[in-house]
């Protein structure tokens, strides 16, 4: 499934002068103050970066427009309680990442005889499909439910980090922060005068 540039040239950040101060500060901080790695070791970091590349492939974008994901996951490993709850069959957040990254290696070793980071992309995807299925090979997955880790730890955090970023908003045509300006064009999915139109597809999907 090729990734198409549906909103060419759309840059939600170019509207930042129309945002309120607090929102602008939060979003700009996310873009320009990427945290240093502090919690994961070099091998874990390489494994995590490889995982992020498979979950959110960004090779189709120019390097300066790629969203850093792994540093934010590493930062989250400084917090034992992330968002107010822990499943009673799961360890705390840093442990879940430690175990999960180790589990990727165990599954990769069983399936392909190499660590996750040393596999080529298609093989990495097979490892991830195995984890997603809920019953991958590997000792780690005997003490931590694989499907739970995949959905709630890996995918939720990585996708949540990506879609928090204005470059991702450009890709999906999200209007972004709208205070104090607000929205006025509400019918038929119409764009505001300052919002992008979607490029028509071959199916003729775009009608605005």
């Amino acid at each position, binding site marked *: *499934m*090729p*990734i*198409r540039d549906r909103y060419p040239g759309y840059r939600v950040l170019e509207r930042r002068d129309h*945002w*309120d*101060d*607090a*929102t602008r500060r*939060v*979003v700009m901080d*996310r873009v320009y103050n990427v945290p240093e790695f502090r919690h994961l070791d070099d091998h874990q970091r390489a494994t995590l970066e490889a995982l992020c590349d498979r979950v*959110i*492939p960004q090779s189709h974008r120019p390097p300066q427009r790629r969203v850093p994901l792994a540093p934010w996951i590493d930062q989250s490993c400084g917090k*034992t*309680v992330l*968002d*107010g*709850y*822990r*499943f*009673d*069959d799961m360890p705390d957040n840093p442990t879940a990442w430690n175990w999960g990254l180790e589990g990727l290696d165990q599954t990769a070793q069983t399936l392909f005889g190499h660590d996750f980071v040393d596999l080529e992309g298609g093989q990495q995807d097979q490892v*991830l499909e195995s984890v*997603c299925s809920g019953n991958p090979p590997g000792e780690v997955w005997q003490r931590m439910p694989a*499907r739970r880790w*995949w*959905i709630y730890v890996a*995918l*939720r955090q990585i*996708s*949540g980090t*990506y*879609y*928090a970023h204005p470059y*991702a*908003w450009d890709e*999906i*045509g*999200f*209007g*972004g*922060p*709208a*205070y*104090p300006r*607000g*929205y*006025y064009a*509400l*019918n*038929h*999915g*119409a*764009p505001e005068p300052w*919002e992008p139109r*979607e490029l028509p597809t071959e*199916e003729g*999907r775009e*009608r605005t």
Partner: protein
Amino acid sequence: MKLNVQLSPNWVLDYEMREYPFGEPVDFCIVGTGAGGGLLAQRLARYGFSVVALDAGPWHDAERDMVSDEAGSQRLYWNDLRITGGTDPLELGANNSGRGVGGGTVHYAAFCPRFHPSDFRVRTQDGVAADWPISYEDLEPYYEQMEREYPVSGPAYYPWGRPHGYPYGPLQAGTAGQMLIKGCIELGIRVVAGGPVAIPGGAFGRGRPHCIMRGFCLVGCKVGAKHSMAVSHIPDAIRNGAEIRDRCMAYEVPIDEEGLVTGVRYFRSLQDGRVVEEEQRARAVVVAGYAIESPRLLLNSTSGRFPQGLANSSGLVGKFLMAQAAPVVWGRFDGMIRQYKAPPACACTEEFYETDPRNDFVRGYALQSVSPLPIAMAHLLVDEDGRFGEPLLAAMQDYNHYACIGVLGEILPDERNYVSIHPTLKDQFGIPVPHVHFSLFENDRRMMAAGVQKAREVLEAAGARETHFVPRYAHLVGSCRMGFNPSDSVVDQWCRSWDVPNLFVCDGSVLPTQGSANPALTISALAARSADWIRRVAPTGEFRRRAPAGVREAR
């Protein structure tokens, strides 16, 4: 002290707030400032009682603290450690909690339907769950008060439950909400535009401007248009002499030899980062921390008289926890939707709310408009099938083509769903943490499946090319239920503990059943009803010794 909290662009809350020394008893100490506690603080202060209301979190200043950003809004949620389990463990945190003045109302969608008359008689009518010790008629005048005070906008004629109209006209619906309306009309299903939602159609009062259709209701309204207790009742509570004491985490309600509670012990986080322990003494205590924190506080307040937890002689504190089924169904449309615009709460149908003998389940569900922002949408997509890589990116590129329907379904109360205290884990204050146990049972599963199927049909009738769904749950109620006697419940019809005459629980915990209606309005209506009763009986010494049955219930 002089307050300085910006509640909207036009309104800085700059009242001189009265402060009470914690060592001297006030009439009421309230734990929590949400739909129950916030309302009660306002009413009791107006009725002349001295009131201190504690909240574990801070004030949320609309200009400084609220942002138009999903990931940047963590401070609005209860993010302390909780453990969740059972066969269908609930997600907690952002989903169903609030922390700070106004509680969960700060970031709720503000759907404010009433319960139906049938909700109060489920045991009688369907032979399951429980009846309430009160009827719809008991609550109806308080529903009317709340709809004017929040206030609630909606259709001139609302055809379900006890038909009624709304004092404020509906807001314009976004395209996503219009798909719910369109699909229902195609199928001949009665549907209403305009919530009911607690966002007035115009400016309200001197400080609350009209809605600007920003669409970020679920991360707090910077505009101050959407209702929260912080913009509706709490300013009035303060004006009438209540103290709202923020950043105070209650951990124990102590009791004396006579079996009366004497106040609330809490950890107070000071501006300089220090944490101090204080005890606010009070002649009566109201626990209003919602359906996890209220039972947690009671269960953690053990004594010789109440070794299983305060007010828990029935053993029912924490039991019968309910969440509503809230699966999200989304459809992909050829045309543009742009679901991020306009308040998500803008249309609904309650056509399937009541028991229908043709179904293989009792009770029912509502269908409501919902409009996930990008992160929430991505989480729906990954939850559905664990997709990643290009399939995930491609599905998210359709973001502007999705319209969503939230099924809001009645899960029946079951004793096997409960809140307990974790035997070893503690939070950052050293307070034992709650362990939430939640499982679905057969009726719940059948109801959810039917609701999802109906939502799919509606979206398809509106023109969706394909539909998807994932299970979700919303709201938390029921864990300190009200009932008819001390053995079937924790509190009586006035939200007062059967065991302790000067202790109240006044939040969603007291609901015996939950219907398919968002609970905030009902929680506030119950609080307003309790406040009127408190005003009436306080002079009789009722809160020192419970009057015998018969006298007590005289109205």
